[in-house]
């Protein structure tokens, strides 16, 4: 059995959660190079199916949330992951600052993951 898990390049919503509520501050886009990488990965798996090496048995997509206790932690994460994302724009950064004004909170970003189970043939 082969289990493949990889992000799907959808827009990833970013929200700020405080005691006052939840504010959507924008969405992150994946970089063009990462989108190409995911497309190539999906094509490689599809090729394994066409060549009857594996058969796809079950597939699902699910949303994973990543929580950051501060804007600084989130920005550090974005710098670490810079190759995967289009940098957040000033509008999003300003929205985050405004949402966190006067109230502690967390930044939450979502990622869509595709999970597929394959069974080896032969």
């Amino acid at each position, binding site marked *: *059995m082969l289990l493949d*898990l990889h992000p799907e390049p959808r827009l990833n919503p970013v929200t700020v959660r405080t005691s006052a509520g939840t504010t959507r501050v924008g969405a992150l886009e994946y970089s063009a190079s990462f989108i190409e990488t995911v497309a190539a990965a999906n094509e490689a798996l599809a090729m394994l199916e066409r060549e009857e090496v594996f058969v796809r048995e079950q597939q*699902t997509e*699910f949303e*994973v949330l990543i929580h950051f206790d501060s804007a600084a932690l989130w920005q550090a994460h974005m710098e670490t992951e810079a190759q995967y994302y289009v940098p957040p724009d000033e509008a999003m950064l300003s929205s985050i600052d405004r949402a966190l004004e006067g109230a502690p909170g967390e930044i939450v970003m979502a990622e869509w993951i595709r999970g597929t189970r394959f069974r080896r043939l032969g």
Partner: protein
Amino acid sequence: MQGSIDPEGVETKAIHDLADFAGKDVVEVGCGDGRLTWRFADAAASVLAFDPDEAAIATAREQTPPALRGRVTFRAADMASIDLAAGAYDVGVLSWSI
């Protein structure tokens, strides 16, 4: 990674809905620091997890719970350098690695 990933447990539930790890010998490709490994290792009979990032592998080794040290092996390697015995594993996990 400097955030808390999936404290809601959505990913853990999803991978256990997709695959039965109970008593299985598992090989994980692209394990990084073991983040995903911990989602299934306690169910598996054994896990060989590898990644070319030596720093991530060092972190994974340091963070291996004592109860899993006899069952989980982390190795710094990539697909070209790892030597995997054919048929030795019941489950292969491609962990965000393609």
